[in-house]
């Protein structure tokens, strides 16, 4: 089965800095990757996704980078704001069968004003 791991359980940054949250996956056949944000008292919420035929995808202030060679993806948040404080999960959707994604452990992003 798939396993998904995050490199750091906690990341502290200053407001205005850029944040980078990293994630590793085990199955080289995985082709669909998702980032979720979970704010305190709320459930996970979709942020951005990327398919394996891409190396980079940009959203509003967020960029996801995918390195298939080393099975690593990252979420970059530009000009981090206090409202970005949350737990961030990467998830990998299976290549066959159900659409149920496998989640990583989560990185808690703490933004200091």
């Amino acid at each position, binding site marked *: 089965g798939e396993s998904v791991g995050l490199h750091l359980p906690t990341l502290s940054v200053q407001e205005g800095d850029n944040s980078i949250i990293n994630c590793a996956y085990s199955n080289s056949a995985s082709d669909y990757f998702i980032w979720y944000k979970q704010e305190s008292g709320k459930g996970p919420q979709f942020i951005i996704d990327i398919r394996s035929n891409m190396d980079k995808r940009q959203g509003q202030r967020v960029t996801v980078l995918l390195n298939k060679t080393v099975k690593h993806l990252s979420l970059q948040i530009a000009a981090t704001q206090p409202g970005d404080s949350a737990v961030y999960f990467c998830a990998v959707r299976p290549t066959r069968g159900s659409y149920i994604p496998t989640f990583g452990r*989560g990185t808690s992003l703490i933004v200091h004003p």
Partner: protein
Amino acid sequence: EAGVTQFPSHSVIEKGQTVTLRCDPISGHDNLYWYRRVMGKEIKFLLHFVKESKQDESGMPNNRFLAERTGGTYSTLKVQPAELEDSGVYFCASSQDDQDWAPEKLFFGSGTQLSVL
């Protein structure tokens, strides 16, 4: 439109007691999922309903956990008897159409924080 709602938001029980968690999915969503996150760990899949049928229950930890979705609307997850390791946040999520799955179409509730003492 109301989102996915879960009740209670917090539950503190003693080991050996029974607890029932409830999830009301978004109206019209046939797919309902239960997940659990133990402190500091990954969000783990428990099971998946399509309407009232269990499509996949491969993530259920053991037979102390019983999930139901009578009538294909709300779902309950009962833990009986509860053990210390059952503590964690239980999330419910729903989506409309499994054939056209997309992560932005999977909506999570706020979760139930279960503490077993």
